[in-house]
């Protein structure tokens, strides 16, 4: 990872006009993404993770959607004010996307060869021949056996895990600076998920791209993220390095999330520390802190009436909360279910 910032997002807000009034879905988020870095965005479904990245290249319907703020790509291009035509040169070329369900990203009636080469011919101006050669390289890179033969196959001829590899190959085909992986492994088995996260990490090392990894799986975050944004009700409630977020979580929501996870090897089975209640609807947000109705720490009279600002509690560690959970208590609460027995791993002897 270098210090070069490839994507700089400021005051990003997204709302939608709905029958029930304006839905404020993303309520002002900021981050810098560096070359080679993996930024994880975690949070409850509906918290605005997908919309906050889709909005960068207007992949949401506008109207009813409305996007404000700025997003600078490579220090020069500002995306939010761009026209559709300008954006079509960014999308797929400089920012690649991989979504949860490969079937929605792949066209079932076209061969995967055609779908892979389309973007390269359009964006990179490659000849059909060169695009095909590059497609073979890409398929090989993402671990598809006999790539030459498979170019002429259709999506349904691949297994779920293999399809997701094809979608990653498409996402990478124009050498993007940023790859957005939105729940890219959520529908896969853990064995396949491990293959895909390893694959993306290897490609990232090789190509130097930055990755935004959207997931609700804290285990995946722990394995791959450099930095983490925790989103709740359209806001970033905590931002920190992965190490700090797991060792010293500070926001009541982050603490609650970690405490609610069942953990492998828990010798004593306590009830899980579930977070009570449900997240608010984006059309009916609480007046004060978005997490107030579910918070077990709320303790400040401002919690109910004022939106807390994002404040720095340690170098590079930001928290949006009036109430400061004492660091020790936070660490203890979050680790309530932590591993007690080590799992087997490849270095253990064989079973024989």
């Amino acid at each position, binding site marked *: 990872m270098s210090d070069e910032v490839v994507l700089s997002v400021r005051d990003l807000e997204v709302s939608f006009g709905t029958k029930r009034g304006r839905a404020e879905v993303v309520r002002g988020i900021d981050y810098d993404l560096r070359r080679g870095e993996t930024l994880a965005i975690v949070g409850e479904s509906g918290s605005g993770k997908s919309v906050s990245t889709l909005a960068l290249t207007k992949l949401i319907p506008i109207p009813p959607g409305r996007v404000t703020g700025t997003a600078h790509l490579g220090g020069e291009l500002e995306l939010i004010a761009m026209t559709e035509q300008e954006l079509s040169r960014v999308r797929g070329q400089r920012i690649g996307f991989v979504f949860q369900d490969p079937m929605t990203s792949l066209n079932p009636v076209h061969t995967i060869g055609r779908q892979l080469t389309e973007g390269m011919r359009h964006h990179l101006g490659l000849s059909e021949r060169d695009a095909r050669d590059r497609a073979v390289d890409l398929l090989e890179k993402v671990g598809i056996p006999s790539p030459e033969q498979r170019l002429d196959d259709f999506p349904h001829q691949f297994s779920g895990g293999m399809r997701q590899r094809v979608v990653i190959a498409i996402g990478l085909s124009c050498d993007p600076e940023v790859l957005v992986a939105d729940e890219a492994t959520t529908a896969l088995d853990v064995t396949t998920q491990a293959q895909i996260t390893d694959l993306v990490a290897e490609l990232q090392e090789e190509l130097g791209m930055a990755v935004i990894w959207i997931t*609700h799986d804290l285990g995946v975050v*722990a394995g791959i993220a450099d930095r983490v944004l925790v989103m709740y009700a359209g806001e970033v409630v905590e931002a920190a390095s992965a190490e700090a977020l797991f060792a010293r979580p500070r926001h009541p929501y982050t603490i609650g999330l970690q405490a609610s996870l069942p953990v492998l090897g828990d010798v004593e089975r306590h009830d899980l520390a*579930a977070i009570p209640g449900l997240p608010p609807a984006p059309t009916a947000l609480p007046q004060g802190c978005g997490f107030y109705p579910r918070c077990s720490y709320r303790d400040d009279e401002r919690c109910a009436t004022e939106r807390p600002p994002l404040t720095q509690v340690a170098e590079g560690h930001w928290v949006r909360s009036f109430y400061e959970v004492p660091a020790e208590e936070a660490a203890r609460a979050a680790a309530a279910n932590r591993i007690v027995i080590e799992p087997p791993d490849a270095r253990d002897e064989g079973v024989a």
Partner: protein
Amino acid sequence: MSAPLLQVEDLSVHFTVGRGRAKQTVRAVDGVDLTLGAGETLGLVGESGCGKTTTGLAILRLVEPTAGRVTFDGTDVRGLSTRDLRRWRRRAAMIFQDPYASLDPRLPVGESIGEALDIHDLHQGTQARRARIGELLERCGLHPRVAGRYPHEFSGGQRQRIGIARALACEPDFIVCDEPIAALDVSIQAQVMNLLGELQSDLGLAYLFIAHDLAAVQHICDRIAVMYLGRVVEEAERLELYRSAQHPYTRALLSAIPIPDPVRERKRERIRLVGDVPSPIDPPSGCRFRTRCPEVFDACERIDPALQAVAGPDHTAACLLHGEVGTEVAH
């Protein structure tokens, strides 16, 4: 030990797909043995397509088994007449990953629960029926007044609570839980798991808990059975399985689960499995896992391994590394 509540022996479910020359047999479940005691939870894990759901459905006879025996509280369920089967069904229920699938979108949720009461002639009479519906909803953490609302008005977690209330309506001793938390957010998963735990200790329910999330299974289950391509390949007490998994497939599965702790997670070396699960239409000869097994040796192609006692007490695995126990493959 007293007789188990549920005993499954050599259960098979084969589906025929295609017709004429293209006719093929899908061996979705192919010789499964399971035992479950009253008030216990048995976990069933494995990659998607390995036959977990079909096993659950076949135990409840919601699909017809091709072969094998299911004994519930001493009665052979396969031999039951339609009438006795209905009576038996009262004692066994199922909840699904998507409770939408089991709730009629056009019916208020209270009516969906009421329907389950009516099928078994329980709590009849307007008053008694309404009271019982309210009680079931409350039992599952919902207010009785939500009975008049429709499924789409609820969040995923609330719908799962309704699915559970409906399953409880027939006062079962046994519930097949098929991926009941897979579609829920982390913070809601814990709510539903706690609810299932509470109901179990209050009502003495036995669960067959099907999931692919091993951390959740390990938290909620007493014993865990690991399936691969239609077979159980290992079974043990939950911590025993975790501490000393004996089948290479179980070890690979365990090593693939990401741990929410960056320090440990980054130190780990995974056992990498290559490729995909083969098709259940034409499973590999001998050991079905041999095409992906990191420890495969020559006997694996020749002998179809049977479950054998390994390591600790009540721990079985079907792997030839522990002795060449199984059936020779005919040439």
